[in-house]
């Protein structure tokens, strides 16, 4: 039990650190949209972005929860039905990065990172 108290304490400390550092970034970033369709597919399935820092807006148009997940992109984000959210990603290395919906695992998407001009 003492250990769990410690966990909760650590969480609260972490939360306390959040206040004040929330907005700051995320303006003026190149922004792209990724939609989760009701049939469990992505729109678009291939998303092209420039290398660097960018933002992907996630829109869940289905009536099920979805999870945008990618190990190479270091992101996992759960969206309830009809929920909009976003992720901010930084990648300097051009290439193709797979992502998928963790709740509909057979549907795959690819993030194509183009070299910066």
């Amino acid at each position, binding site marked *: *039990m003492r250990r*769990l108290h410690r966990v909760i304490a650590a969480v609260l400390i972490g939360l306390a*650190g959040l206040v004040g550092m929330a907005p700051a970034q995320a303006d003026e970033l190149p922004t792209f949209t990724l939609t989760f369709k009701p049939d469990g597919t992505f729109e678009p399935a291939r998303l092209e972005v420039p290398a660097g820092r960018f933002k992907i807006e996630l829109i869940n148009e289905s009536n099920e929860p979805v999870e945008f997940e990618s*190990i190479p992109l270091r992101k996992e984000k759960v969206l309830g*039905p009809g929920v909009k959210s976003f*992720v901010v990603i930084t990648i300097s290395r051009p290439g193709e990065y797979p992502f*998928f919906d963790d709740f509909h695992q057979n549907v795959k998407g690819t993030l194509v990172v183009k070299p910066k001009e």
Partner: protein
Amino acid sequence: MEQVLFIVWRESVEALLVVGILYTWLRSTPEGARGLKYLWGGVAAGLALAVALALVLLGVSSWLSDEGQEWFQAIMSLAACALVVQMVVWMKKHGRTLKGELESGARSSVASDNWWGLFVLVAIAVAREGSETVVFLYGTVSAGEGGGDMAKLALAGLAGFAVALLTFWLLQLGGKLITWRRFFRVTEILLLLLAGSLLVGGLDHLISLDVLPTIIDPVWDSSWLLSDSTGVGKILADFAGYRALPALISVLLWVAYWIVVWALLRWVGNKAARAPLAARSAS
């Protein structure tokens, strides 16, 4: 989901170890049989306590921002990693003497007819494992608010518990074939690998939050050899923290983790091996 199954299985087996040893012992003596209802009462109280902790933890997600959730996931992953290591170390220290200690503890409870001691012992054992399960599940599933997700999670959890009961039964049956010690040896390694993957997962969140420098990102690209997103690579990613495109900081901290764990276990192992000798020479 395999991760959920494994965790629930493992935590249940641990709680069952405590409950099972006490149960076997209580059943073996007539006066002990009276304590059985305290035993099951302790199990129920422990479960209720674990669920209460779960509700507190789940409530946290609904009022967190995006960045807050990222922090929360990072902290939960790292906390879970620390819990696993702590648990493995604890087992290394006590695994050898656990049965004897439990029995002598229960015997003194019987002697003073203090069944509430037994009740509390079991409740703590179950709540400890239960709350650990909750922390893990939370780290794994994070802000899952939808029905499909919860159903899948519950199913994996139930499956894990069913397999745990089966494992416990098998272990009771074939004590010679798989000893508890060997069982712990194997699961110890699995758990440490899992803790390593929780560490890497937590670090990924910290990198996303820009609080941890990547140093070199990525250090290498092994995705042509083994992708971390499908098949075996995905399993390795979930269970051992494999990354096809790791940041240098993750690699360094992962190596540091294994060095620390190795040193810690060696130290505890030596101490545990020496303790019985010291006790014998003292008497």
